[in-house]
């Protein structure tokens, strides 16, 4: 492929990531529709090794691991996108307010809150939230949003402080633009583009965190198909039926890798544009 060698490194990474992600999304969209196997009720003989009929084998309850793995991927990706989207919006807004606030009392207080939330290991604080809300889909979502927004706030705060000092913002102030106009039309759009790049890289971390919580039994609970929970369920059968854990783990790693490549590529593309 001659055109491929002409691409820049960043473009190539982005492309490979996008292709990989497209494949995974396609598989998770189609697997539950096209396959006759039910992701929750087992209808096949249990613990069968991978074969043409069951690409990833079957688990101890006779469920097809392939169908389950991709149904799980769909759930994990949707949860991650929602969680990242909400934290991105909330965190960036708060961070922008903080960055504009300079040395005011409100932004000083918000600074402390953001730094303190970020002081916690992400997964630890998320576990704390799950303890209250309960191990469930809403539990996972609120855990990740309540602990995640502060990281976007930190990124947006730093970026806003830079942008708020830029000459085009000074020009806007000199022209008598109102505070909200300066914020919405001039500061925010320039902060947002960087926050978006950050969100892409966060998507990887959040997908892994969702799976991690579920792996620990503090996330989405069986029998709902979820990658971390599947890996955890297969754990005790690791020596007898490795495929029950290993295939979901591989799908999870590939999904994370594809997004990682997209995020890295995007970041480098926008940096050198």
């Amino acid at each position: 492929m001659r055109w491929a060698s002409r691409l820049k490194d960043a473009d190539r990474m982005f492309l490979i990531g996008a292709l990989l992600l497209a494949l995974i999304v396609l598989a998770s969209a189609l697997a539950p529709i096209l396959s006759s196997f039910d992701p929750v009720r087992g209808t096949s003989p249990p613990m069968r090794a991978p074969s043409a009929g069951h690409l990833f084998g079957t688990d101890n309850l006779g469920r097809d691991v392939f169908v389950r793995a991709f149904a799980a991927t769909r759930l994990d990706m949707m949860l991650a996108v929602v969680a990242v989207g909400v934290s991105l919006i909330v965190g960036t807004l708060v961070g922008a307010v903080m960055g504009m606030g300079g040395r005011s009392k409100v932004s000083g207080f918000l600074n402390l809150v953001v730094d303190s939330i970020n002081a916690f290991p992400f997964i630890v604080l998320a576990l704390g939230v799950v303890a209250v809300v309960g191990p469930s889909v809403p539990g996972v979502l609120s855990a990740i949003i309540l602990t995640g927004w502060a990281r976007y706030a930190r990124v947006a705060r730093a970026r806003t402080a830079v942008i708020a000092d830029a000459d085009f913002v000074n020009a806007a102030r000199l022209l008598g633009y109102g505070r909200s106009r300066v914020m919405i039309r001039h500061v925010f759009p320039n902060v947002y583009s960087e926050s978006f790049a950050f969100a892409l890289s966060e998507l990887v971390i959040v997908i892994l965190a969702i799976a991690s919580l579920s792996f620990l039994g503090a996330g989405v609970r069986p029998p709902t198909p979820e990658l971390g929970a599947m890996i955890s369920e297969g754990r005790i059968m690791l020596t007898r039926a490795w495929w029950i854990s290993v295939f979901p783990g591989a799908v999870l790693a590939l999904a994370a890798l594809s997004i990682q490549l997209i995020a890295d590529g995007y970041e480098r593309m926008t940096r050198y544009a």
Partner: protein
Amino acid sequence: MTEPIITVADLHVTFATPRGDVPAVRGVDLVVAPGETVGIVGESGSGKSTLARAIVGLVDAQSGSVTVDGRPVRPVHGRRSRADAATVQMIFQDPYSSLNPRQRPIDAVAEAVHVCQRLDRKASRARAMELLGSVGISQAQCRMKTRSLSGGQRQRVSIARALAAEPKILVADEPTSALDQSIAASLLNLLRRIQSERGIAVVFISHDLGVVRYLAHRVYVMKEGVFVEDGVTVDVFEAPRHEYTRTLVSSVPGAGTTVAHGHAPAQE
């Protein structure tokens, strides 16, 4: 003599930094008459930009006063009135940070027209197109992405945006120092034309004596936060009284004798 449009009296500006206070402007007096072009020259770090920012209200004075068009200048962090915007506007040194990268030239200027002149969307865009045309930006360039404009084009867009407010004063902080020489020259011509056509006062800052000589009626020479000399341009350049001015003039071949860019400005 007419009432000055800018009066700066005993201005001090100090920056507090983690390594201690930095006095950037240390007692400066300056007057600018309506329609006059005043040059400020001095080496880098002498406090020119800080003074410029104090005049428009982008930094606060530590003591002293800045009166613009009969009123004390208002810090831009509060709400500025339309009258404030129509008094003084500024052109910045770095063309790459003085335009919002998310706006095309037409949008940036139309926004300024819309806010400052209270025109509706359509009228704003038409007026913006006119302004951009008058500073030499073509119709096609108006709709280009800011990212793809050159430094000189960006400065022209900045000028058009400033003119949208129809200010009485334009403060230009080294608007040409990031540009190639020929491009700088045409930008200077543009500034000259604007100054004479609109009769606005211009405070022109530069470390390039030739450029100041070409534009300014009067000049102030700044060093370490204070003015060491001021006067009518030709006098200062041809018979410098202060040691520092003499070194400045002698270090620029030709600046003291011939005029770098053709004809000298009208003299009093």
